[in-house]
C-alpha cells in the first residue's frame, strides 16, 4: 500500500479517538438540553472544574488556600496526604452532585419559564463563575493528572500493522482506554434511561414537562439528577482530557469543540452526539492532513464549525435531530 494512504488511515484512526472525547462532552450537553431545554455552555468548564477538583483531592490540597493565605495572612498549603485515585474520583463525583444541587437551587429554580436565550446567558455566567471558583479553590497552574490509565504507544497495534503493511500505526493507549470508557459510559446511560424508574421519569420530562409534572414527577429532582449525570460525564471527560494534555484552562475550550458536534448531530439526539463527534474528530484530522499544508495549517480551529454550518444549511435540525415543525 502507498505510504500516503497508510498515513491517512492512521490519521483518521487518531481522529476517531479524538472524536470520542468530543462526543463525551457533547453527551453532557445533550442530556441537559433534552431534560430542561437549557443549552449548557458551562459543560466544558464543568469538565475543567471536575478535573481540577480530582487533582486537588488526590494531592491533598486545601481548597481556597491561596485566598485564605492572602486574606487572613495564614500559611496553609496542603493536608500533606495523598488520596488514592478511586476514592478521589468518588469524592469528586460527590462534589459534582453538590454542584448540581446548588446550581438548581440558586440559579435555575429562579429562571424557570424564562426564554431559552436568557437561560443560555445564565450558563455563560455560570461558566465564568465556575472557572473563577476552580482557580480560586485549586490554583491555576498546569497540573498533571494520573489516575493509572495506560499511556504511551500501543505496542501490539504497532507490531501487528508493521507486520501487515510494513508501517506501524501510532495509536496511544490512552485513546483506546478513553474509547472503552466512553463506550461503557454510554451503555450505562442507555441502561439507566431504559430500565430504571428514574430513567423513565427522565425520559418523560424530556418528552413533555407539563405531562410529566401532572403524573407526579418532581421536575426539581429530575433536573438535579440530570445536572449530576452531566457533572459525572464532565468528570469522565475531564479525566480523559486531563490525562492526555494536563489539567489547565484550555480544557474548558473543548466545550467550543463540542458545539459543532452538537449542531451536526442535533441538539436532542444522543446517538447524534456520538456520530457527530466521530465525524468531526476524523474530518478535522483528515482535512488538516490533506488541505492544511496548502492553506497555512491550524485549520482545526474552524473546520468543525464550517462543516457543521454546511450540513445545517441542508438539514437545519442536524443529522439526527427531531424534525423542526413551526406553527404560527
Amino acid at each position, binding site marked *: 500500500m502507498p505510504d500516503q494512504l497508510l498515513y491517512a488511515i492512521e490519521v483518521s484512526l487518531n481522529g476517531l479517538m479524538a472524536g470520542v472525547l468530543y462526543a463525551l462532552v457533547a453527551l453532557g450537553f445533550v442530556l441537559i438540553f433534552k431534560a430542561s431545554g437549557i443549552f449548557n455552555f458551562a459543560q466544558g468548564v464543568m469538565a475543567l472544574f471536575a478535573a481540577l477538583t480530582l487533582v486537588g483531592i488526590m494531592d491533598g490540597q486545601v481548597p481556597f488556600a491561596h485566598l485564605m493565605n492572602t486574606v487572613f495572612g495564614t500559611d496553609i498549603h496542603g493536608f500533606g496526604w495523598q488520596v488514592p485515585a478511586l476514592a478521589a474520583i468518588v469524592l469528586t463525583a460527590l462534589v459534582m452532585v453538590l454542584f448540581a444541587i446548588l446550581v438548581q437551587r440558586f440559579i435555575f429554580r429562579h*429562571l424557570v419559564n424564562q426564554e431559552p436565550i436568557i437561560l443560555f446567558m445564565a450558563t455563560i455566567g455560570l461558566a465564568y463563575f465556575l472557572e473563577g471558583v476552580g482557580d480560586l479553590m485549586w490554583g491555576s497552574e498546569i497540573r498533571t493528572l494520573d489516575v493509572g490509565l495506560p499511556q504511551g504507544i500501543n505496542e501490539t497495534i504497532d507490531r501487528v500493522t508493521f507486520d501487515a503493511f510494513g508501517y506501524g500505526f501510532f495509536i496511544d493507549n490512552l485513546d483506546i482506554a478513553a474509547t472503552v470508557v466512553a463506550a461503557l459510559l454510554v451503555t450505562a446511560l442507555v441502561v439507566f434511561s431504559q430500565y430504571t424508574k428514574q430513567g423513565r421519569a427522565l425520559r418523560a420530562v424530556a418528552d413533555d414537562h407539563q405531562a410529566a409534572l401532572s403524573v407526579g414527577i418532581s421536575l426539581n429532582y429530575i433536573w438535579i439528577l440530570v445536572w449530576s449525570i452531566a457533572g459525572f460525564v464532565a468528570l469522565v471527560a475531564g479525566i480523559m482530557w486531563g490525562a492526555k494534555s494536563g489539567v489547565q484552562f484550555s480544557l474548558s475550550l473543548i466545550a467550543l469543540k463540542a458545539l459543532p458536534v452538537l449542531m451536526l448531530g442535533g441538539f436532542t439526539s444522543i446517538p447524534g452526539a456520538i456520530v457527530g463527534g466521530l465525524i468531526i474528530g476524523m474530518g478535522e484530522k483528515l482535512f488538516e492532513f490533506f488541505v492544511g499544508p496548502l492553506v497555512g495549517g491550524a485549520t482545526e480551529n474552524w473546520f468543525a464549525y464550517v462543516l457543521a454550518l454546511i450540513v445545517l444549511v441542508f438539514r437545519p435540525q442536524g443529522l439526527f435531530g427531531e424534525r423542526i415543525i413551526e406553527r404560527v
Partner: protein
Amino acid sequence: MIYREAGDFKTSYVADSQTFPIRMDRRAYWAALAVAFLVIPFVINDYWLNAVFLPFLIYAIAALGLNILTGYCGQVSLGTGGFMAVGAYACYKLMTAFPDINITLHVIAAGAITAGVGVLFGLPSLRIKGFYLAVATLAAQFFLVWLFNRVPWFYNYSASGQISAPERTVLGVPITGAATDAWATYLFCLVFVVASAWIARNLTRGSVGRTWMAIRDMDIAAEIIGVSPLRAKLSAFAVSSFFIGIAGALFFAVYLGAVEVGSAFGIDKSFLVLFMVIIGGLGSILGSFLGAGFMVLLPVFLTNVLRDGLGWPTTLVAHLELVIVGALIIGFLIAEPHGLAALWRTTKEKLRSWPFPY
C-alpha cells in the same frame, strides 16, 4: 414629581413623534451631550481616556451593533469578535493603501466592508434558527480570526504578524499613532458614537426597525403578513456588522494602536459584547450604553479596590473578577432579565409619582 409629562403639550406631529417625548428626558439628553462635548475634553487625562472613556465609547458602538441584530432582530450572534477583526483589518489595509485619504473615511469604509462580510455570514440565518444559528456564527468567529492570522496579505507580511496603526491626522490633529492627545482621540470616537446612536435610534423606530422586530417576535407570522425575512434578516446583519466594524476599526486604530488578532478579537470579545447587550437590555439603545458602561467600569473598579486598595496579588484578583462577573450576570438575569434599561424604565415610572405614589 420629578419626572412627569403634565404640562408638556405637543402642537405638531413632529413634536409628538420625537425621540424624547418628555421634556426632562430632552433636557437630560442635551445636558449629557454638552458635558460630553464641552466639559470632558478639557479635563480628560490619559489614564481616564485609556481605562474608561475610549473602551466605553468603542464598546458602546459594538453593543449598539449587536443589539440591533440580537435585541431588535432576534438573531443571536457569537461572532462579534470576528466582525470587529474584519473592521480592524479593513481599516488597516485601507490606511496603508491610501495614506492620503482622511481616516474618518477609512473607518466608515471599514464599517461598510464588515457589513458585506456580515451579510455573507448572515446568509445561513435564513435556514438556521435559534441556538443553531448562535453556534453557526461561531464559525465566522473562528474562521475570520484564523484567516487574519494565517494569510500574510492581511497584515502586510509584517514579521511579527501584528498590525500597527500608522500616524494619521484629522484637521491637522493626530488621531492615531504614538503622539496623540487625549482630548483629540476622545472627541474623534465620541463623534462616531453620537452618529451611530442617532442612526440606530432612527432606524429602529422606523419601518426597517419594525420589520426587524416583527421577525424577532415570530418570523413565520411576520412572513405571512408580508415582511420579507430575507431582506429583514440580511439588513439587520448588514447594519449590525457596519457598527461592529466601525467599533473594531476604532478599537484597533485609535485605542490599541497595535493588534494581534487572536488576543484582541478572540471569542472573549464576542461574549463581552453579548454580556453588555444582555446586562444593558435587549432591544434598547440606552441599554447598549448602560451595558457597555457597566462592563467597562466593573473590572476597573475591582482592580482599583482589590489590587491597589487591599494589595492582593494580581492572579487572585483576576480569578475573583471572573467569579464576580459570573455571579453578577446570573444575579442580573434572575433579578431583571431585561437588563439595566428595564430597571431604568421602572425607576422612571416610580419617579413620576414620587413622593406621593397614591
